[in-house]
């Protein structure tokens, strides 16, 4: 895929990428790709977006529960990453850094909106779902309704518990990585995770009652 992003500074010609150059960039690890971004190599940031758009979108979706808001937040995450790239020192992994931006963007957004409940999830029929299972429509509907209940319950957790549960359960980040993202300790992350799960159980039990 050739890049559509062509940067130009005053006095410098606009540059574009050949297929070969794109393939070479794609083989770089994250640190090298960041260096290429800072050097102004066209397409380098495109590749960062391509590499991380799915996990960032999924984190955002976990927080807001609908495609439109998740897309908006994802765009915001990458824009902030682009602006802050010059301050990225490589002390943490690029993925950790992007997750940190993502969690902060999501927590800022959810703090300004009312808590999600099962009635504000986007209707199943409006979701662009790709069903890879062999479930019957009824089974699929039940599964989606259960998922909506769990998502709504997660949305009611306190911020750090919610973020910890999302990052640990759905992105399989280590406790240390989560601690780096949230700015806390491994012990605090485990405690948050424990309380998140305990509270989630209480909320789900109450909704079933």
């Amino acid at each position: 895929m050739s890049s559509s992003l062509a940067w130009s500074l005053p006095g410098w010609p606009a540059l574009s990428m050949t297929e070969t150059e794109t393939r070479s960039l794609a083989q770089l690890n994250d640190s090298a790709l960041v260096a290429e971004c800072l050097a102004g190599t066209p397409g380098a940031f495109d590749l960062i977006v391509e590499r991380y758009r799915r996990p960032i979108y999924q984190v955002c979706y976990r927080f807001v529960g609908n495609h439109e808001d998740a897309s908006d937040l994802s765009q915001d995450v990458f824009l902030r990453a682009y602006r802050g790239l010059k301050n990225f020192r490589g002390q943490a992994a690029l993925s950790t850094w992007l997750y940190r931006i993502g969690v902060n963007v999501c927590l800022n957004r959810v703090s300004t909106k009312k808590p999600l409940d099962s009635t504000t999830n986007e209707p199943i029929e409006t979701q662009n779902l790709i069903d890879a299972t062999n479930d019957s429509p009824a089974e699929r509907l039940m599964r989606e309704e259960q998922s909506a209940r769990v998502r709504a319950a997660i949305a009611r957790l306190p911020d750090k518990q919610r973020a910890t549960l999302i990052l640990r359960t759905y992105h399989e980040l280590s406790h240390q990585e989560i601690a780096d993202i949230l700015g806390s300790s491994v012990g605090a992350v485990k405690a948050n995770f424990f309380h998140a799960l305990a509270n989630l159980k209480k909320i789900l039990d109450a909704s079933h009652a």
Partner: protein
Amino acid sequence: MHLTPEDLIDIAEGERTEASAPHLASCAECRRQLVDLRAVMSTAADVEVPEPSPLSWDHLSARVNDAIAEEPAPAGWNWWLRAALPFALATAAAVVIALVATTRLIAPHVEPPPTDAFVAVPPPSARDTLAPDVADPSLAFVAELTQDLGWEETREAGLAPRGSAEHAVTHLSEDELRQLRDLLKEAMAKSSD
């Protein structure tokens, strides 16, 4: 003493075995908490994010591109260096000129042999007459950097046509070359800060 939340999480996630916590065998409350933890972890894990259509990913990338297109390019040190390079060369050239002018005040003047073409770098014939130190990497670096300068950049960098004092740099003595090398290194170091 009951197991701590961290202990229970470690055991529930399989980071520790139940056998490593003998308290479990004798505490129904801790066993219940462990069972509950595992159950809700499984329930939560079953919740998937609906996968958007493949077009959504390209759409997201396009939206990011559009947003970034309105931003200034990230200013890493490489961008600064590339933007400042002509000025760095101008500084280095000014230093060279100052050195030549200074040494001519105290050393016998050396008339440069006439050449037929203006060069922003020492011509091959002139290089051959120079001391072996002209192969010094610092001078070769300057020559390499300036060889692609167009006429306008050359003029802006303060380099002038033949017959001028600047042209004399191509015929410096060994001592002068050493001093030039040191000054160039200093100028380049300052430019890259």
